């Protein structure tokens, strides 16, 4: 069964066509990098996978079921910014998902349940390297640490799919390299299917097992919104062996 199957998907806002004729089948455990110039519908595709956007036409299936048109715990997400709650400390941020699951009415766990949940949270925080930052608030954390919290927060729900929206775009190069190691590790150990939108072509090829490039295949200069973007390149990679972007994709990104 495919983790994700898009069949002739179109996304339109009124008369503006953002995505057209998108066909995609992704097998479970893939790490799909999504690249493309600005305005080519990368974020729209991610919003579609999140359930924030429903396809105007076509079919979107997630693990054989119709994609729900609401975000849910089966799909975790990490955004570039605003991924964690500023009024909760690191531990509370990661605990939040477990509290929602365990207590539909109050959203609070107490006593033995809370202790068990906190053990799980602490183990998760240790695995992303945040053991000593448990009591800190987001405003006290560096950008890289904030993204680690966001990843831990998503992973604790054990999602089947992890969606990353330019997660490392705002980080320093050194921190970014650390995060690449972390996310690769997490992807391998949890058997996740990951979709990552990125501007960084090198990152896309270094991390992905598959790179998808979105762009407008047709263009009307008089009516720029008449045609939407679609998948123009779909490169399957043997990870690590083939981590260099082909020149035509480099050229496209350079024009972005």
């Amino acid at each position, binding site marked *: 069964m495919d983790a994700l199957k898009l069949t002739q998907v179109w996304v339109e806002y009124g008369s503006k066509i953002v995505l057209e004729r998108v066909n995609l089948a992704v097998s479970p455990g893939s790490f799909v990098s999504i690249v493309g110039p600005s305005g080519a519908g990368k974020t729209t595709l991610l919003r579609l996978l*999140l359930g*924030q956007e429903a396809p105007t036409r076509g079919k979107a299936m997630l693990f054989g079921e119709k994609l729900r048109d*609401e*975000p*849910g*715990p089966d*799909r*975790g*997400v990490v*955004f570039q*910014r*605003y*991924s*964690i*709650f*500023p*009024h*909760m*400390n690191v531990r509370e941020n990661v605990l*939040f*998902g477990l*509290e*929602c*699951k365990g207590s*539909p*009415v*109050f*959203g609070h766990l107490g006593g033995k349940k809370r202790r068990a949940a906190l053990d799980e949270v602490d183990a998760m925080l240790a695995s992303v390297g945040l053991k000593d930052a448990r009591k800190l*608030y*987001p*405003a*006290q954390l560096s950008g890289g640490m904030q993204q680690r919290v*966001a990843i831990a*927060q*998503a992973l604790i*729900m054990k*999602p089947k799919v992890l969606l990353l929206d330019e997660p490392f775009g705002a980080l320093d190069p050194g921190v970014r390299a650390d995060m690449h190691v972390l996310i690769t590790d997490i992807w391998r150990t949890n058997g996740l299917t990951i979709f990552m939108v990125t501007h960084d072509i090198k990152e896309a090829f270094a991390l992905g097992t598959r790179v998808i490039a979105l762009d407008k295949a047709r263009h009307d200069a008089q009516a720029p919104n008449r045609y939407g973007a679609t998948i123009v390149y779909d490169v399957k990679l043997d990870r690590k062996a083939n981590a260099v972007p082909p020149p035509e994709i480099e050229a496209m990104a350079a024009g972005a």
Partner: protein
Amino acid sequence: MRRLLNVKPRGGVLLFLSVLPFLALALVYVMASEARHAINPSDKILPTLEAFARAINIMALQVDQQRGEILLWMDTQASLFRLGVALGLSMLITLVLGLLLGLLPALRALAGPIVTAIAMAPPIALLPILFILLGLGETAKIALIMIGVIPCMVRDLTAHVRSIPEELLIKAQTLGANTWHILTRIALPQSLPRLIDILRLQLGPAWVFLIAAEAIASDVGLGYRIFLVRRYLSMDIILPYVVWIALLAVTLDFLLAQVNRSAFGWAHPKGAR
């Protein structure tokens, strides 16, 4: 020569600059008062400092013969009670309405326009209606303050809740949160610091409505007293009362700011002022 916008006073200079306008005001007053009294020793418009001392003694230190209480204390108690009840209820109503309107588009469609319409009606114009419907007692005065401040507070809090980044609401949903979870665990705590700031901004209008209500129909209260002694041109009482009201307002504002800072540390990270 440095640019004026780069000249930042510190320490003693800062203190001196802050105090200077007060001293200047006091000096101008004393000079004007003396000039008037030189022409007319029984002038009531700009009383002398001795006259103030006498009036303050009568109002704030002596027990009033008729009422059997100290008038300033009685008035202050009555006014602060009205203000406190009105602002407390306003905060509660604002919190509920602001959260719901900010978070639920369907409710916003239903109630948004009418809140805006009510906010446009001048509250003082509603005062006669309140007196007719609720009588001349405490209820009408408290209701006036509430009607005066709630629409603005609700609109502000609604806007604040709507400005919570969409990413956070999406993230919460991917963590399995339902609407109630998002309301109580995300939107509510993120609204509380703003609610206190909104309250601080509405303190000014709240005092205006309080004084107006007390001036028109009351038998006790700071606003009542000012408008009562106005008939006798008692500037020696009016001016200290005005200073006292301003002092109360400033103290209230300061206390609320302190509460905000100490209770919601996450919203005020160090260095980010």
